[in-house]
C-alpha cells in the first residue's frame, strides 16, 4: 500500500508524509504539490527512501 498523507494545520502550514515507496520516487510524487504550496522548511528522508526501488512492482501498481 502506497500512501501520501498531507496535513494542513489550522494556520495553513502543511506537512507531507510518504509511506510505502522505496527509492527517490517518493519525492517525485509530492514535488508538484510541495512546489505549489511554497518553500520547503524541512525535509527528512527515512530509511525506506534509500532502499532500491523495484521497477517491476511499481509498473504493476503493487
Amino acid at each position, binding site marked *: 500500500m502506497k500512501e501520501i*498523507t498531507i496535513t*494542513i494545520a489550522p494556520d495553513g502550514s502543511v506537512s507531507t508524509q510518504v509511506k510505502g515507496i522505496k527509492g527517490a520516487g517518493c519525492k517525485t510524487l509530492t514535488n508538484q504539490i*510541495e512546489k505549489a504550496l511554497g518553500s520547503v522548511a*524541512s525535509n527528512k528522508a527515512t530509511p525506506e527512501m534509500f532502499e532500491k526501488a523495484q521497477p517491476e512492482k511499481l509498473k504493476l501498481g503493487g
Partner: protein
Amino acid sequence: MSHVTVIEIEIRDLECLRQAAEDLGLEFRQGQQTFKWWGHSVGDFPLPEGFTEADMGKCSHALAVKGKPGAYEVGVVARRDGKAGYILMWDFYGGGKGLQAAVGDKCSKLCQKYSEKVVLKHAKPLQAQGWNLQRSAGANGAVVIKLVRP
C-alpha cells in the same frame, strides 16, 4: 515510510485564493487597488519587509466579507522580499469590524483553506493515475488529505 516534508506556505495561486475566500463567505475583488482599514498605523507592529506606512491600504486585489459593508478588507499585496507571489495584509484591530470572524485570527482560516485548495488542485494528476483521495478532520483543527494506492 519514505520522507517527511514541512512547507511554509506562500500565496501564489490567485484562483485557489479566490475559491478559499468564497468558501469562507468573502468576495475576491480582482484588481481592487485599495483595501479598507482604519487608515493610520500607530506603529505597534512591524511592517512586512519592503513596506512603509505609505504603502498601507494599497494592494493588487482585495477580499471583502459578503454582507458586511462595514468590515475591513484583506489586501492581496505583491511581495517585495524577492519571492514570487503575494502577502495578505489586513487591519485586525477590534476584530477588523467583522473581518477576523470570517478569516480567522492571523488569517489562519483563510490560509488553511487556501492550502487545501492548492493541495486538491495538484492532487488531480495523481488521482488520474489511480490514487484515491480521502479528506478528513485531523487533531486540533487540522485537515488531513490522504492519497492512497493499493
